[in-house]
């Protein structure tokens, strides 16, 4: 794992060419931001939650209008007492006693309630292939939901960058990486996770967050199916055929 802190990536974009693939760029930007906003929500509750809810409503309106009610629900949910949100967050994702919805891929894929398994290692391998690693001051497992959501966001921005720079090969490369990461990792456990959150959450906020996450991911599966030669996605089938699942 790295020693540095989380970092800001600067993408090289030729401004003149930007509008050429406008639709794609607009849509992908909204996708990338949605992943990032969701990732931020699975960190410890902070005081940017309200602002984040507004942004998420905007991006979900574009990429997943079905999730609009959940986005609205997030705002309502934020009216809860902040302490209540922290307590619920801890109970669901942190502990200390028995986390209700472990936010780790390996728990679902390997079914042993043991982290840092082979699936975790595979996720880490993919981050490395993309030139990344866990940030040094990030103390959680590499298949924590926040990392996997951020990684998707990273891959999306890489695709946008490539596309705007007219690099077809690289655009497709990053789209394919997104597709396979969803297939093998995030998409293969997120629905089970979201179910667990919805069932166990005491607060409206986390129920809506889980619902919004699941709705968006489901929708995103079908979106990514437009990747050339990708074939038609079937999210349920993906869960079944996942090779990392034990």
């Amino acid at each position, binding site marked *: 794992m790295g020693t540095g802190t989380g970092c800001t990536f600067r993408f090289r974009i030729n401004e003149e060419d930007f509008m050429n693939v406008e639709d794609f760029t607009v849509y992908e*930007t909204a996708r990338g931001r949605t992943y990032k906003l969701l990732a931020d929500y699975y960190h410890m509750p902070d005081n940017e939650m309200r602002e984040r809810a507004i942004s998420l409503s*905007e991006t979900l309106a574009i990429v997943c209008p079905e999730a609009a009610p959940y986005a609205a629900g997030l705002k309502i949910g934020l009216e809860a007492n902040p302490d209540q949100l922290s307590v619920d967050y801890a109970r669901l994702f942190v502990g200390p006693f028995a986390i209700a919805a472990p936010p780790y891929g390996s728990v679902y894929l390997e079914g042993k309630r043991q*982290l*840092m398994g082979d699936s975790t290692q595979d996720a880490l391998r993919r981050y490395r292939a993309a030139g990344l690693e866990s940030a040094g001051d990030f*103390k959680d497992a590499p298949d924590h939901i926040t990392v996997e959501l951020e990684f998707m966001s*990273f891959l999306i921005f890489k695709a946008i960058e490539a596309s705007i720079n007219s690099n077809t090969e690289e655009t497709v490369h990053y789209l394919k990486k997104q597709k396979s990461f969803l297939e093998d990792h995030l998409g293969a456990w997120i629905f089970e996770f979201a179910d667990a959150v919805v069932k166990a959450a005491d607060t409206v906020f986390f129920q809506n967050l889980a619902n919004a996450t699941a709705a968006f991911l489901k929708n995103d599966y079908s*979106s990514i199916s437009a990747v050339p030669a990708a074939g038609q996605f079937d999210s349920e089938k993906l869960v079944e055929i996942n090779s990392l699942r034990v």
Partner: protein
Amino acid sequence: MKEKQEKHRSFMKDFLDDFKMSRRSFMKKASAATGGAIALGGAFTPSFRTLAEASETSGKGLGEWIASTCQGCTSWCSKQVYVIDGRAVKVRGNPNSKVNLGAGCPRSHLGLQQVYDPDRIKTPMKRTNAKKGRNEDPKFVPISWDEALNTIADKIMELRKNNETHKYMLMRGRYSYMRDVLYDRMTKIIGSPNNISHSAICAEAEKFGPYYTEGYWNYRQYDVTNARYVLIWGADPLAANRQVSYYSAVWGDVIGKATIAVVEPRLSATAGKADEWLPVEPGHDGALAAAIAHTILVEGLWNKEFVGDFTDGQNRFVPGAVVDEETFEEKHTYGVVKWWNLELKDKTVEWAAERTGLPVEQIQRVALEFGQAAPQAISWVGGGPVMQVRGAYTSMICHALNGLTGGVDNVGGTLASNKEYTDHFPEPDDFMDEIAKKGKKHGKIDHRGRKEFPCLNEGKPGSAVVTNNAAEGILNEDPNEIKVAIAYMNNFTFSCGQPERWERALSKIPFLVHITTNASEFSWFADILLPDAHHMFEKWGYVKSIGNGYRHVTIMQPVIKPMWEAKIDETEMPWLIAEKLNERGFSNLLDHYKTYIDPETGKAPTNAQEFALYALKYATQNLWDPAKYKGGDKFNGWEDFRKAGVWNSDPYPFRKRWSNMKTKTKKFEFYSETLKEALEKHAENHKTTVDDILETCFYQARNEQAFIPHYEEPYTNGTEAEYPFLFVDHKSRLNREGRSANCPWYYDFKDVDPGDTVWDDVAKINPLDAKKIGVKTGDAIRITSPTGSITCTAKMWEGVRPGTVAKCYGQGHWVYGRLAAKEFGKIPRGGNNNDLIPAVYDRLSGSTVRHAATRVKIEKV
């Protein structure tokens, strides 16, 4: 360039046509509402919180075996962990250890499921529900290390400001030998007498017999590969006693050479492979030992070289006959004739058979064969017969057999510890100010040394801890209230008899900090939780252990980067607290810790991580620094030692302690002048007689009998009429202590404990008894004792003595993790044996009782 752009545009157009089909809703929404107006400002410079650009060194994919230590039980085996890409994936025995010989046991593998348990405490947390109680959800929320440490430091400073530092308490569970940094030095420098160890709930009574016969207060090692007879009392070395890995590795050889007899009411893993199983009536082990001693003397089988002989060679040990002491000349022992006259002369095999429920022939056979094997005979005393109300004397009489056979300190016998050369940490005295010195003088919260708690550790009254009684001290504010407490790697609300008392006691402490890996029944009552490093994978430390005629000092090191926010309990955390106390104007603790200099560089530590490492190097310098070499394995320096992970002593010096024992007479004492002095000192402290002390402490001995190994009837809770069964508690080969309860493998492989069932918690009942009470395998049952009740599953099993019910300790958690509890916070998975066991003590050693402690009744539910 232009061409490339055209090509890309054309490709993307085709692509987007498809794309639009699948994103119809987007196109509609995007064109109608937002169009292309999604602002890209900032969007192309996303800040990632969890990912960073990879460094060049990461991800080589090469694995490496790194040395560490397993503390899954008290064997303390040296280990190696296979680490690949920063991830621990396998554990094996460290081949460098002469104690373990590279062998292992299942517990070390369970470590992987512990370190990577998703239910671990991940970050400091604070309680947000001020009310405390079993039914009060603490509602913990994550906080920063800074907030946690500031809060702790403020509480300690408040005690110091008000001159009530004695109201600070430190409770310790599983420790390494870095323990004194937190347990001793920090408690003393703050100014409290109240550092309370878990030792008395472990097996202190086991040490009592060896100390008051041969002056050795510690666990023994056994020269099994040279033994011809191994007689085991309530120990299960293949599963749950010390050096499980070593004994498991050599046992095939031992079985081939020696006769093995196991005295235990249930068929243990070791009993299952023994030549003789003696399912003794619980609590009557002392009667069997007395009859064996009687037989050895009557048959003239004692070891003449060690014990000596009648001056004329004529054996006067005739059943019932008093022997004149003048006729016997002892060599390396003291008081054998006194022992015969006071205790053994009438303890015939027939007499023992009546009490133990064992056949006369079996007792006779075992006694003869054991005696005939002398001196290559071992009487191996485990916790079973001694962690009882009158266990101190059983510990003496069972261990005293080693004196008769001359197996003590001898080839094929029972051995003490080899010499090792680790160093103490710097003394705290110069850093204790007036407040601290005054605070430390107060009485201890566990009442050791009071008339009713002699606690005679190494001959000193009031020197052994009475762990479980600290709950009474806290509850009754006797001798004072406890206002601030820190506890680490313990779970007294689960691991002590009558744990409900601890629930009330902890609820009463206004500020409680719990340092642990998994939030337990103890954590439930805490105000602050601190995430502890896992000993095998994330911690710097060392432990020492004996076996195979060697002693090893084995280190634990952080073989992986700690998971989450975990920090090291015994070094990093006290340093961080010391820093915060320093910020508040109290620098003594930090000043003291700065004296733990790195022996290699002479530098004082400047932060918690340096302190953890320097403290270990400081304590172990004599082992690895060639300039300080004193014996055993030789190393070229710290790095050499760290890589090997273990230092081995010189081989055992047999017979060096004969007539040079740390007893009052320097001999092996069958009449213990050492115990006599200790008891008389305690009686004098309370201006009374030894007999009065013994009566107060529930022992039967009076007069001279108080000083000899002897049989006492068991002292058991409950009447036979109301509670027909004697309850037999035993340990698992998967968790001698706790900490496996949230590991899936613990449940998957639970049937490695004889008679147990996977994914269930069973009470083993003899089929004859089961039939009588109309219970069969699989029935849900309630077991009730006078002090509590549990529910679990019945299992008909021939491996328990009729009239007893045996159940493995370990399950019955109502928290601890998703798997550990059946319905988290509410319904335990199985039952906790301690809910049945009363809070009673072997008061001479201070031990908490867990065997022959209670009777129970069984009902179907």
